[in-house]
């Protein structure tokens, strides 16, 4: 009986991880394709329909919220993950600055300010989210 319940838990773990991973892949792919098509009109939409990908993202996103986050089995790497997250957030913020500037450069000098501020907002919001997540994790442990 115990054996069965353990096996069931393992399958559930794989399923949960898969759904969360599909969501991540679908979201990143959709955003990437959207940006590519926005930058090079028709590059994606002349060859692919991206709406189904949006549906996959939405459905797996909702499922991810419903099944809850992945539970880490490796506590030793928490510090390392946090460092990686900071790197990722920084790169994302810089990329956002570059992209927003590229899209609105026609407005003139104001484009510098808007893009830098946008990047800063993305960076700060991301840090806020990570800290919130870490606090939740600590509460769970207590």
């Amino acid at each position, binding site marked *: 009986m*115990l*054996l069965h319940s*353990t*096996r069931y838990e*393992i399958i559930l*773990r*794989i399923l949960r*991880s*898969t759904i969360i*991973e*599909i969501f991540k*892949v679908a979201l*990143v*792919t959709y955003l*990437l*394709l959207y940006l*590519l098509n926005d930058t090079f009109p*028709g*590059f*994606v*939409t*002349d*060859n*692919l*329909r991206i709406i189904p990908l949006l549906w996959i993202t939405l459905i797996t996103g909702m499922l991810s919220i419903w099944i809850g986050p992945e539970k880490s*089995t490796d506590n030793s790497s928490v510090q390392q993950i946090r460092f990686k997250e900071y790197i990722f957030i920084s790169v994302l913020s810089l990329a956002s600055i570059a992209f927003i500037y590229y899209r609105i450069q026609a407005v003139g000098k104001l484009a510098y300010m808007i893009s830098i501020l946008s990047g800063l907002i993305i960076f700060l919001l991301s840090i806020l989210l990570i800290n919130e997540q870490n606090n939740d994790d600590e509460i769970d442990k207590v």
Partner: protein
Amino acid sequence: MLKFWTNNNDKASTVIRVIRIVLWLAPIVILMFLLNRHYVPFGTYIVKYDVQNGSPAVRNFASKEPDRLIGTKNIPGETDYFQLITMSPLYFDVKAPRPFAKATVTLKYQNPQSQEVVQLGVQQSNAAYAYYPMAYANSTLNSLGDYWQVMQSGDVYLWQKNIEYFQNVQNEKKIYDSRKKKLDDWKTKQLKLATTNDQKQTIENQYSQELDQISQDTQVDKSGSVPFSSINDFLGHIPPREQVAQYNYDLSAYYELPGYKPSKEATEINHSLRGKHEIYTYIGDGESLNFSFVVQDINRHAGEDSITFSVIGPTGAILKKIIEPDDGDTNADGHVNSERVVDLLLPDLPHGVYRIVLDTNDDMFIKKIVTFQHLVMFKGILYLTDNSEYKSIVGDRQFSPTTVYTNSSILSAYTSHDANLQTLRVGTRNIELTSANELVDVTLNQPITSITTSKNDVSLQGNGYFAFTKDQLFDPNISLVVSVNDITNIDDYDFIIATYTQPASEGDWLIASATVEAPQLFFDKGSDLLAHFIINLPNFHESGKILKVKEISINFEKPPLTLSRIWSKIIGLVNK
């Protein structure tokens, strides 16, 4: 137990890791796919448009039909979608990521009312369309009797009438018709005499039995043979023109004018002609077309008076075009500038009938024609002007009567000036021109009739040809083989040759395709790179036909990207 848990937990982590790798490969594969579609390194780019789901790369798919007829139609009980086409042409633009050297367009359709011709049109740089046959459906060719034996080589078909079998069929058909008529008479007579329904039914049954018996008695077994074993054999030993019919097949190269010999001396036509004329001449194999025209502008009407000389070959292609511009005087002042000479020389031509169209207005005079062709005749119109009315342009010419010859069966003539009302001698008759600008019609009974005008200044019009000597006339249809579409009874002919592109079948649908190559395959470089195509359906709307279109696919091709091509491109860039 703990060991089991640890082991299974490790396995689960491995499975999750594999799933992660596979999932993260997906965007890479999608990116590779998109790069392949954009750069087309393997040389083939396929666009498929179906009327239900469309295609992002196909734009403006529409025909000139009313809005209510555009859209997919779904007959109750059927799930097959199609677009109902009632107007021609059907337009569609295809967006391509880069120019291609070749495109094969495939149409999936139904042709319930046998639209005869389906063509692919592709827009050229000058906005004109080049056409390519996709499919033919000729009712005559599709309903030939079984005594027509067919052979095929690619899109070329040859039907040969098995004469022995055909004659047997005809004989038996006569017997069948005669016996059936007698039987019909008997039935009519008996039905009049019959009083009850049973009696009538018995007569009907007996009639059916007898008719079946007649059909059996007059059945013909296949016998006899056809003379040619292949299409090449037929073309190598081409039968007389009267026995042959064609459909989309040019046989002009196979029929020469019997007994034709080129002239060694020049022919001079020293008669002044006015306005537009069309000259027909015959050229032997390897001979040159050699004409020289002296033209002059009379400037009686305002506006430009240019003259265009177009040489049209036996296939209908324009071989040469010369535009002689206005003499510089566009006023209606009657001022005559100096004569101009226009030479037309096309060396080493294949044999056949050639046309020279002199397209101009009535201010332009053709004062003299010198040619090394000795068969020279004018189609439809000859406007003779050696008269003192035009003294300013024809100068001190001797105004003597002119005799011309025509093979027309109907002749019309008029003069524009009261001073030149005259009596024409047409064959053995005198025809009076009694008032200016009034056409006088005459029916001609002779194969060739002479026409003599005493004063000239007369426009002669006929349904045949005019020449200045009898031996300049010839049969311009010598190389023309009658088209299947112009024939009332195809069984009057023994051979039919046709370029007859046939669609393939896929269930209830027909699949027709055509290939177009550069430079005819032109890409419009606007904000997008577009190739403009049409599906052209000649005489479609007039005949009230419909076509059901399900799918169009376009297969673009270019040479694949090889290492040597990449290298040569790099070298090219470096050299730049």
